[in-house]
């Protein structure tokens, strides 16, 4: 256990190595998480947008089919 927060940060002099590796590790994990969520959200919005435009366009097409 560390006696002070300062020691905790210093990590017995190896602070830079330890905090760098923890930072990079959790940084990588967070980036991975965010990227995964973003792509999924982007795809889902494209899907909804596409389905909406299909719904809009299929009604006139349906109408034109009856008139042929």
């Amino acid at each position, binding site marked *: 256990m560390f006696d002070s927060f300062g020691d905790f940060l210093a990590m017995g002099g190896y602070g830079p190595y330890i905090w760098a590796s923890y930072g990079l590790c959790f940084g990588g994990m967070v980036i991975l998480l965010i990227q995964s969520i973003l792509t999924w959200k982007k795809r889902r919005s494209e899907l909804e947008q596409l*389905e909406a435009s*299909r719904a809009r*366009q*299929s009604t006139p*097409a*349906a109408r034109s*089919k009856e008139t042929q």
Partner: protein
Amino acid sequence: MARLSATSLTCLRGPRLVFEGLGFSLNAGDALLLTGPNGSGKSSLLRLLAGLLSPLDGQIMANGHPISDDIEGHRATTAYLGHLDPVKSTLTVQENARFWATLLGLPDRVDVALATLNLTDLAALSGRVLSSGQRRRLSLTRLLLSPADLWLLDEPTVGLDTNAVATVEQMVADHRARGGVVILSTHVEFQLPGAKTLDLGDYTPAAFRSEAPV
């Protein structure tokens, strides 16, 4: 039981839906002429039937069994002539023909095949010097060197002179007489007596359909 039949066939090429709901049935000795505008999927259909392309939906049956069950077996009984002529420029006509004859299993028919497509006097020439018509005739010899009873020909007579076209028509007639099945697409006049026709334009999906494949 039909030698070859397809039901509600749907084909996706890259991002594009080429045709859907296509079907036909052929018995021994039958012929099917594929017509339709460019891009309507004639080549895609031929590649599907040769097992070189897997359909998005639908079923292709050969002798009552789906070809996907034994795709290798189906391919072994199929002769497919595409747009490309597999002629090696550094091999002679004779070597090219003999290679395919050995691989297809009828090595002793090389001379007959070359004679039929009057390539005999070109036998010693290397592929590099052949004209496109001659290269086409050389790849047509593969049909005579193959035991396959199902011929899938994609515009077989492109670049051929009139008597070469007559030779091909005769080859097809003989093949059908022997109980073989021929499916071919062409834009030029081709004698195919008693052949069924299939216009791929009828199967091009309408611009927007209500039931998307979701």
